């Protein structure tokens, strides 16, 4: 006998609103489906009404955890359109913040994974050490979460010698703690037992379902935009792409812990080789007509921004493909034939960032089960019909 279990949109296992529909037979999940749109805010439409400079602050608020990778991706694209190149010191600082953000995001994820596996002391440990990174970020940029350090043609703030030494000192603490997590993650029998073999995704499936980031790398796909299509100064930085072959949640944990070590190396390299000079150049306000695709490696995987310019100081179109969206298909495949108790663990393993992904409009016909992509004009007609019904029924006006 088959049952349907709805999970979310408000659910203790999920920090953000999303709805999962599971069709279960006993304890085993036979089918999984996602309901999206609880977090859709309409950022892409909003971006068309703002200038390039204002849009930096809007793209920053696509997501609070990988805010810097979204602005980096956007700024890289707009700089290509404006034909300006950020000075070297500016680029070093930009990617320094990017790597610090990766460290804070991975530590955050390790904590969440520990929490979902029932290992709450691990959660508290990683979040305590995450505060070290948050302090560094606050000292560099002045804010803990939205750093607002990117600007067109460079970065907005410089760092001094005292801060540089302080960051290098803090790296020592972080390295020691990460070694401890690696020992804990690979040797603690109950933790390993909970994670090993859960949510398997084979290498073929990872490629076929277009998984990105640590999710793909844990299935043996060595894909990293920083190495495959080096942007900025990543071409000259020595680092390794970490992979694992276990294809399960344990592999994803190990990949993230190894990536922490690589990020510390990159941060150290950037600080030791920090060139002198200005941090930003003045950028023009208007971009010539043209279009650009910009990619970068966010903590969760490949992030893509498409920007179309029409000659004014505002973009004609901005399209964002966040890494979580690319990982949804792989998650649903992994949920099938798993157990109900593994849902939070499997879902958390892609490090879902729902606010990043909520940008598409796709409706699934409940009767035929066929997905239909709705055109904008159809959607407007539907919206107008619905608005007409609502206002007639309740005699109210929409507040906005």
């Amino acid at each position, binding site marked *: 006998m088959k049952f349907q279990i709805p999970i979310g949109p408000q659910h203790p296992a999920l*920090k953000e*609103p999303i709805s999962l529909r599971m069709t279960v037979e006993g304890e085993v999940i036979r089918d999984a489906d996602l309901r999206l749109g609880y977090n*859709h805010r309409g950022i892409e439409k909003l971006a068309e009404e703002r200038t390039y400079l204002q849009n930096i602050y809007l793209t920053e608020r696509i997501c609070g955890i990988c805010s810097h990778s979204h602005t980096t991706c956007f700024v890289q694209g707009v700089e290509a359109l404006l034909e300006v190149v950020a000075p070297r010191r500016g680029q070093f600082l930009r990617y320094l913040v990017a790597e610090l953000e990766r460290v804070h995001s991975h530590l955050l994820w390790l904590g969440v994974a520990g929490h979902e596996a029932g290992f709450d002391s691990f959660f508290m440990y990683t*979040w305590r050490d995450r*505060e070290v990174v948050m302090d560094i970020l606050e000292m560099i940029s002045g804010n803990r*979460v939205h750093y607002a350090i990117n600007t067109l043609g460079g970065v907005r703030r410089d760092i001094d010698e005292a801060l540089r030494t302080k960051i290098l000192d803090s790296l020592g603490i972080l390295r020691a703690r990460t070694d401890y997590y690696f020992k804990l993650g690979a040797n603690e029998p109950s933790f390993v037992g909970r994670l090993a073999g859960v949510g398997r995704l084979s290498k073929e499936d990872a490629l076929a379902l277009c998984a990105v980031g640590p999710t793909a790398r844990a299935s043996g796909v060595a894909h990293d935009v920083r190495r495959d299509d080096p942007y900025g100064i990543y071409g000259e930085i020595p680092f390794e792409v970490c992979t694992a072959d276990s294809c399960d949640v344990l592999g994803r944990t190990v990949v993230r812990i190894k990536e922490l070590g690589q990020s510390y190396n990159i941060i150290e390299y950037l600080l030791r080789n920090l060139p002198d000079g200005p941090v930003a150049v003045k950028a023009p306000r208007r971009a010539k007509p043209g279009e650009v695709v910009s990619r970068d490696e966010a903590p969760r995987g490949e992030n893509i921004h498409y920007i179309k310019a029409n000659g004014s100081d505002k973009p004609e179109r901005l399209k964002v493909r966040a890494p979580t969206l690319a990982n949804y298909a792989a998650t649903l495949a992994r949920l099938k034939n798993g157990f109900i108790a593994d849902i939070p663990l499997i879902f958390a393993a892609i490090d879902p*960032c729902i606010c990043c992904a909520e940008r598409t409009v796709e409706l699934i016909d409940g009767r035929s089960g066929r997905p239909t992509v709705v055109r904008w004009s159809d959607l407007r007609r539907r919206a107008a019909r619905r608005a007409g019904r609502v206002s007639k029924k309740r005699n109210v006006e929409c507040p906005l």
Partner: protein
Amino acid sequence: MLKRLVRWSRIKSPWILHLNSGACNACDIEVIAALTPRFDVERLGVLLKATPRHADVLVCSGPVTRQMKDRIIRIYEQTPDPKFVVAVGACAMSGCVYRGAYNIMGGIDQVIPVDVYVPGCPARPDAIIDGVVKLLGKL
């Protein structure tokens, strides 16, 4: 006597529910950061609960998307009386950068009554704790 006991216990251990109404995650991680060792609100008796039926205080973030609106009202109705709402972040207060977007209501107070507003984009964990303390001071 009983009234005083109830009031005392309410101030001593407010249980909170964290509700994301379409926020960008920044306020949410700051709410979680307030629960972890650096800030550790659990020492003050604040406990994060999983269901609105156990909660006294709804800590809401986000500008309220149209799809979440009905769910938020439902969650608010499920919370037992007396209930209080803390709006965390600039989005929850007025919509912040999303103001004017087609899918945004523009603030928690457009949907449910709010007792305390915590400004900031995102609000710092110490600001969130201060907001909850101010709320308890009002009781």
